[in-house]
């Protein structure tokens, strides 16, 4: 069954939903990256929670107009309108009052959601809410989805991706460095607005699959995951889209195999699994790499400091420094340097003197700015330049 699902052989609707989810996941991953690079990831949380009153209101209006209130397009339209109102409130709060963005996000999120819940209870009291399956909008449900709905979602995901393809350059520029972008003639507020529109589009399209509580995960998690693997914005965008697409595809397929596997949470959990792997194992920013690097770095600092202390005949009291020096065979247990230690200490001291001499040379400012106590001088100067420095310093001092 799982293999069937993954190979898109579980019927027409399920296939369409899975493809739609993958498109949506990719679109969300990419859109989310811009948001994340702009340090506004949780704005999406406010936007998605703000859709609830709109969904409920649209339902009530459609019922009042004599319809059934089930039209997905109508409900999504309502959700878009109320998300926009929520976004406007958030901007108004941060612009015109002293509140910081996080407070504005939380306020809009909770109040809109609360109001949405009020409207939902109104719908329930009308006695037609259950049939409309509005609960599905909270956590997403693809079970029993109509063919037309599945098409709507797939097309929506495709449309968002198309818009991103057109807008990617200015959006990347703005999310990377808004001031530079403005200087380049990019209309930053308009690009920001477009970015928010995309967030809203992703939210609205994703409501039915993932639900409004978890849609924010599709926007944030892939972007954060991708950030672990690359330092280049362009690559982060593409990776994020890939992570988002893969997680959504797997999630939708797996959830189609059994009735009690809700689509939204499964997709989010696949996404979170990818994130967890990246957090632990990514080469640059991953936890394991960071721990190893930090220990190596600490050891380098202590070694260098120890060598300099040896060279100047100072006693060393840091236990870690002593242990490292002894392990490297540079110092005996009683604190006296070995021959090897003396040689290396003299070299360290001489390097310090070379750096000091280098710093006095105004022409070498760029090179001397590289100094951080650890970097070997041979990494910034040629052998000839070092020889020239040595000539200016004079004969090497006797090591102690």
């Amino acid at each position, binding site marked *: 069954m799982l293999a069937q699902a993954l190979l898109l052989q579980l019927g027409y609707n399920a296939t369409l939903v899975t493809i739609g989810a993958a498109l949506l996941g990719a679109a969300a991953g990419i859109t989310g990256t811009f948001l994340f690079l702009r340090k506004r990831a949780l704005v999406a949380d406010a936007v998605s929670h703000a859709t609830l009153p709109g969904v409920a209101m649209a339902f009530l209006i459609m019922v009042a107009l004599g319809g059934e209130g089930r039209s997905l397009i109508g409900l999504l339209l309502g959700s878009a309108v109320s998300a926009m109102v929520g976004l406007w409130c958030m901007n108004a709060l941060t612009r015109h*009052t002293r509140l910081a963005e996080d407070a504005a996000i*939380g*306020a809009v*999120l*909770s109040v809109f959601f609360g109001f949405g819940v009020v409207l939902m209870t109104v719908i329930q009291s009308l006695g037609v809410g259950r049939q409309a399956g509005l609960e599905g909008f909270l956590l997403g449900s693809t079970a029993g989805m109509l063919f037309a709905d599945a098409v709507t979602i797939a097309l929506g995901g495709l449309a968002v991706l198309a818009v991103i393809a057109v807008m990617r350059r200015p959006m990347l520029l703005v999310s990377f460095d808004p001031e530079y972008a403005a200087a380049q003639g990019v209309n930053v507020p308009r690009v920001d607005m477009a970015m928010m529109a995309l967030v809203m589009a992703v939210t609205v399209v994703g409501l039915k699959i993932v639900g409004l509580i*978890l849609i924010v*995960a599709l926007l944030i998690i892939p972007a954060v995951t991708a950030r672990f693997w690359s330092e280049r914005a362009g690559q982060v965008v593409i990776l994020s889209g890939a992570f988002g697409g893969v997680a959504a595809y797997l999630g939708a397929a797996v959830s189609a195999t059994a009735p009690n596997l809700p689509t939204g949470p499964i997709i989010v959990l696949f996404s979170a699994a990818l994130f967890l792997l990246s957090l632990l194992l990514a080469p640059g920013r991953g936890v394991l790499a960071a721990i190893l690097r930090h220990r190596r770095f600490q050891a380098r600092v202590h070694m260098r400091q120890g060598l300099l202390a040896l060279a100047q005949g100072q006693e060393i009291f840091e236990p870690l420094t002593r242990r490292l020096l002894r392990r490297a065979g540079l110092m005996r247990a009683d604190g006296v340097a070995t021959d090897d230690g003396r040689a290396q200490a003299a070299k360290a001291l001489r390097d310090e003197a070379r750096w000091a001499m280098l710093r006095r040379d105004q022409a070498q400012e760029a090179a001397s700015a590289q100094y951080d106590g650890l970097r070997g001088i041979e990494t910034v100067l040629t052998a000839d330049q070092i020889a020239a420095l040595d000539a200016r310093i004079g004969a090497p001092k006797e090591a102690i």
Partner: protein
Amino acid sequence: MGSEFVPLSLPPLLIGAFAAVACALPGNFLLLRRQALIGDAISHVALPGIVVAFLITGAISTWPMMIGAAGAAVISVVLIEVIRRLGRIEPGAAMGVVFTAMFAGGVLLLEQTDTSSVHLDVEHALYGNLESLIWLDATGWGSLLDWDALRHLPPELPRIAVTLLGVVLFLWLFWRPLAISTFDEGFARTLGLRTTALGLALVVVAAIAAVAAFDAVGSIIVIAMFICPPAAARMMTNRLGVQVAWSVAFALLSAVLGYVLAGYGPLWIGMYDAVSAAGMIATVSGVILALTAVFGPCRHRAGAPAGV
């Protein structure tokens, strides 16, 4: 009047009010520390905590669930910090990763577990069920002095009352260190204050308040009360103590007005059924915030934020 009010309305009113204040109090400090959304995160991760507690104990019993939820809150805060530090990820995004993933896990566990025999579902976790917390043994105001009747108070009431007391005690005791470390963390460290521990303690207290409130009134109120009353209070004054007092007033007003509007509002406009009290309380707190944002005497920034 008392014969209906005391059994049906007094307990939910008190529970709502206590829960609102218990969340609004630590919310003041979270707001000033730019951690307003911690409340959001905590109330999301309470769900997996509760479900796990249920799976372990096999029953809906209060204390394991409270511990489960509080444990999940602490785990989430630690995880957020780890991701933020190690991955050099901005706090908002780190938060977003952690609480959505944990919430998704909670929902999945819940769907996989047979909870049909017990009252445990996502909707309950979100909206709570304030209206159902009634005190059937009460016959009128006199029941407040009747020990037998008092023993049958909804257990949520004493629980949230004790929680509120704990929150008040914590803030009273640590008021000055909290204020100092919130305003100027570097200076606080040179005083020898354990600022990291203090920050964590604040989050734990907020988590306890959230979990106790959550149990009674659902997570919407929790998030709304962490943020809206303190944010509205921020527009009213430039003094910390006064701000906290305003936030308590706004929280109480939201709770009472929200409950009344939810219960009687629909009747006034000719509908028969009450609407969600939790939702209405959140809505009222939003209206208060909107009013203060437009009319509050101190709604504009007074000084530059840190780092400018």
